[in-house]
């Protein structure tokens, strides 16, 4: 889920670590987590949104390409993964923050109730907001694919 927010692998690792540290601290301080699954998703999505938001405010001197770092296993996989990521991330970036979160949670196979709890959208509005967000993505993904094929 974390890597679906346009974060790098290294950022994703840090975020996941942060999430589990918070979970540990929550239990350590005697707090209870009623629904660990939604709790983890909620904390992770909050950190992701903060990370992406913070990144927008800072300027990167140099962007390190993950391809150059040889992080992925094979070259084919690398290119395919990167292309997929580019298309979907470009399309997702046009959505509002909450819509983006809902689509990501939806792709995780979560129920409407879980999506509602994590994103803060009313349960009755989940299907409406979700169908709208998916409709918005439809033309964007089509044009993205066409652009990619033309290249």
């Amino acid at each position, binding site marked *: 889920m974390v*890597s679906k927010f346009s974060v790098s692998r290294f950022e994703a690792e840090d975020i996941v670590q942060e999430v589990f540290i918070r979970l540990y601290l929550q239990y350590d301080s005697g707090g209870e987590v009623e629904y660990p699954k939604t709790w983890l998703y909620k904390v992770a999505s909050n950190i992701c949104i903060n990370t992406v938001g913070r990144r927008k405010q800072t300027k990167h001197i140099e962007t390190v390409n993950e391809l150059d770092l040889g992080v992925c296993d094979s070259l084919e996989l690398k290119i*395919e993964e990167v292309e997929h990521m580019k298309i*979907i991330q470009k399309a997702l970036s046009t959505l509002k923050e909450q819509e983006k979160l809902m689509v990501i949670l939806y*792709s995780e196979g979560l129920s409407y109730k879980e999506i509602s709890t994590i994103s803060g959208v009313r349960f009755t509005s989940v*299907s409406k907001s979700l169908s709208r967000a*998916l409709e918005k993505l439809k033309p964007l993904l089509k044009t993205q694919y066409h652009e990619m094929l033309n290249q």
Partner: protein
Amino acid sequence: MKCLTNEQIQQLIDGETSTVDLTEYQQHFNGCSHCKERYNEQMALSQNIKELLNASVQSPERIPEFRIPNKVIKPKLKDIRIISWLEVAALLISVFFVWKMTYKPEEELKPTAENIRMFEKCNNVYANTATWRDNVIIVTDVNGIKVQYADK
């Protein structure tokens, strides 16, 4: 029944429709090819987006290994008890010595008859009267100045 909204179709795709609505929608689909087509389209779109998003997920570089120890050596309970008793004894001895070194009992006040008489005399005198001075005789001898009371 009216044609289904996008919201209703989405609920149907995601299995979030109630049983009552489900039968109603199915009956509607039998008579409305337009809605059925929309349903198929929306279904394909939802699946495509899901697949695309999940395909973009990078597999983790490494999963940290957790090595479970084969044999766990538990400390002997008897040893622990002896050690803890020794620790308590050492602590108590050191506390006792510190207390002994620092504690000084207050000196008991043992006034002599002279002290008591002097105290009473001084306290019975009014400061503004010369009575006290009259009762005192100052005697000087080789040892220095001495105060003597007239009634002595």
